């Protein structure tokens, strides 16, 4: 017979850590992308195939630059949020941890590269 209380027995064992935070943040980036995808994709598709000078000039324009930065940063974050859920569903054990960390680092790296590239173009450096 144990004198430990029910609460003490359950404490620290359940989920209830970050709760619904991940789910919630993924919805927020999804809603942002609802606007950003069309705002990014049409100018991008329009400019793709043009020469260096024309494309450079297009993305030096503040509106195109701001949209592209917002899109790339949000899309990479949303990608990480989504791929984390997929990994959690199909991969278990140590590999799960390795893949999630690798994906987080890769998504952060690509977001950084994209944002830096467009800033450089827009600020004319």
């Amino acid at each position, binding site marked *: 017979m144990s004198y430990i209380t029910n609460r003490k027995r359950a404490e620290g064992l359940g989920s209830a850590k970050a709760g619904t935070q991940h789910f919630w943040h993924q919805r927020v980036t999804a809603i942002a992308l609802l606007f950003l995808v069309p705002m990014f994709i049409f100018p991008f*598709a*329009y400019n793709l195939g043009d020469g*260096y000078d024309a494309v450079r000039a297009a993305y030096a324009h503040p509106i195109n630059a701001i949209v592209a930065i917002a899109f*790339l940063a949000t899309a990479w974050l949303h990608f990480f949020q989504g791929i984390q859920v997929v990994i959690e569903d199909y991969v278990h054990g140590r590999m799960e941890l390795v893949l999630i960390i690798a994906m987080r680092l890769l998504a952060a790296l690509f977001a950084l590269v994209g944002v830096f590239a467009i800033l450089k173009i827009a600020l004319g450096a």
Partner: protein
Amino acid sequence: MADVNRGDRPLSPHLQIYKWPLNMAMSILHRITGAGLGVTGVLVTWWFLALATSPEYFETANAVMTSWFGDLALFLSLIAIWFHYVNGIRHLVWDTGSSFGKKRVRQSGIIGLISAAILVVITIVVA
């Protein structure tokens, strides 16, 4: 009691047995397109890096993006992103607790597929 016959029992029917309802296919497609768009993201980010670096580097990246391989990859990505976009809207609606009925789910699925196709055509026409 523990089952002594473990491992030798008939399995319950699994994925390959069922006739796939539309929504089941769209659900897995949502994940496949989402993961696949990560590859598109790498291509597009690399293209912007090249654009920021030099005309010569841009020439290389742009040649890849406008080659037959690039055209195919971007065409598939275009289908993927609009499908994921439209299906994502369905998910956001479901998140509010609405439109879960069997008929409504099928209906929104068909409307979603048609809308995604229209968006693909519009993007190609505008570009």
